[in-house]
């Protein structure tokens, strides 16, 4: 008995587009989302490069609280002015951007990882395991999340970046878990999963190779929208003095320092305006991109 030769590869011209390719095409057609993606890319590059070129240090100080423009004392040109220690705000904005973006991305990754793992196990296992796991999620939804974050930050005491990642990342996986579970539930009864089971694929392989790729769309969308909210939460922590610590900085810390410097007699407007501008434009772009991704992945394509 001879084994049939494998079917010839399908003709290129009739090859179907995958869901992801389709989504990408729709995303590129969305101008706001594409512009946001380009902006974010440029911003990330700038946040990596600019602090290497311009000193944000205390050492090379000009005068304190100088408005944007050439310094009256040293003649150096400060695009965004200087802060209360005479540091160049332009450089510090980009340096702060590094940390804000890093916190946003790392904490989101932690949350997505836990949520995906938890949700896929619950959805795939089903039955009482699913029931117990999702009731735990329900209970955790009732816990005041920000208070727990504050307590962790107080409990840790010494504050590097790691506790901030952990505090912000470890407790926001709940919604991701719900999304992933829902997706896994819809797909696990499909024919392709049945086919994989029939040929004897182990559970782990079915989960990783067959189910998770189908789950990633909504998860990517949700994580794009989670990054801005994490950056805002970091700003709140920094406002309380529990976030990033000097001499490191973040947009949240810069903006809250700027907010603190405001008084009725003299307004150091640039200290608030520029960090807030960075914060707002980044968050705006992330939200646009997230919305664009959601529309692109939405099979109904209502807004495309």
């Amino acid at each position, binding site marked *: 008995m001879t084994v049939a030769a494998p079917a010839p590869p399908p003709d290129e011209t009739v090859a179907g587009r995958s869901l992801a390719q389709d989504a990408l095409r729709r995303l590129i057609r969305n101008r706001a989302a594409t512009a946001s993606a380009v902006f974010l890319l440029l911003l990330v590059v700038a946040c990596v490069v600019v602090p290497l070129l311009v000193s944000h240090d205390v050492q090379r100080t000009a005068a304190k609280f100088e408005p944007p423009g050439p310094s009256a004392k040293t003649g150096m040109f400060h695009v965004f002015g200087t802060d209360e220690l005479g540091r160049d705000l332009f450089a510090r904005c980009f340096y702060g951007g590094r940390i804000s973006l890093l916190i946003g991305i790392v904490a989101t990754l932690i949350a997505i990882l836990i949520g995906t793992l938890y949700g896929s196990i619950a959805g795939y296992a089903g039955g009482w395991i699913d029931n117990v796991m999702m009731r735990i999620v*329900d*209970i*955790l939804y*009732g*816990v*005041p999340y*920000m*208070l*727990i974050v*504050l*307590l*962790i930050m*107080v*409990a840790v*005491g010494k504050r590097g970046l790691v506790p901030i990642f952990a505090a912000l990342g470890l407790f926001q996986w709940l919604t991701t878990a719900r999304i992933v579970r829902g997706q896994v539930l819809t797909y696990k009864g499909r024919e392709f999963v049945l086919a994989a089971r029939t040929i004897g694929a182990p559970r782990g392989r079915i989960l990783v190779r067959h189910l998770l790729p189908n789950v990633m769309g909504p998860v990517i969308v949700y994580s794009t929208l989670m990054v*801005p909210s994490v950056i*805002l939460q970091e*700003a*709140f922590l920094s*406002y*309380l003095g*529990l976030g990033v610590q000097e001499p490191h900085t973040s947009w*949240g810390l810069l*903006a*809250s320092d700027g*907010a603190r410097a*405001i008084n*009725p007699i003299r*307004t150091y*407007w640039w200290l*608030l305006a520029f960090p*807030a501008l960075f*914060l*707002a434009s980044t*968050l*705006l772009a992330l*939200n*646009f991109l997230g919305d664009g991704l959601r529309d692109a992945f939405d099979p109904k394509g*209502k*807004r495309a």
Partner: protein
Amino acid sequence: MLRFVLFRLLWLVPILVVTLGLTTWLMRVAPGSPFAAEKRVDPQIMQQIERKWGIDKSGWQWFRRYVEGLAVGDLGPSFKVQGRTVNDLLSSAIPVSLTLGLLALFLSLLIGVPAGFLAGLRQNTGWDYGSMAIALVGISLPAFVIGVVLIIFLVFEWEALPVGGWGTVKQLILPAITLAAPFAAVLARLSRAGVLEIVHEDYIRTAKAKGLPRGEIVLKHMVRGAILPVVSYLGPAAAAIFTGSFVVEKLFRIPGMGMHFVNSAINRDFSLILGVVIVYSTFLVCFNLVVDIAYGFLDPRVRLAK
């Protein structure tokens, strides 16, 4: 219906057990004592103090004693605010936060929902882009930036309003706007999405085919369906608004719950933290319950499980 309500209220018990347990544990693992002061205190006096507040015992014993007190409605004395009980502190802060929160919630609904409807009904027009851009800015700025910008213009520059304090109507305006802004923005986005969700439904087309005037279609047929995502968001949103915002209360010097929320954690005022947690979780469960019931009335497809 009654069974549904009771079941949902019983849900509060595990939530409180987990939250209180987690909080107690976190406070216990934190190094140092809440009574550590600048001055060195005689170890014996310290022991006396710790015994008085019951934190010389293990976390478990403390937790049990606390729950016993809770059963009779006693939240214990505050660790840090001299001579005041937690019941006392909370009962003076809750009305303040409720008043401000109610105003802010009303404001955010009044601005957010019509803006979202306008954007959804005139999709891809200037109205749509304009209101959604404003909404995104509202979501993208931290509350302290919004608050400070309001203070700079309305208080320092134009001297139209007082900077802060509590007691007069004028003092309520700025904090209510600051508190409402992010919620109004989210509500606008949600109601726009809600409108887009139903605008192509058959029953809307039927209403149009009958020749109903546009206003009547929007008010009678669309609001009920499009408001659903807004309603489900209102539960957590109301809990967050009513427990107050630390940033708003600090900026405008308001004696509300948000202050206790943050200060108790920073000062490690154990009993006050637990009190705040109880109020928040209770608010959350109750508002979510109200929302779910309202949902059943608004959407005939949803029937509450018995």
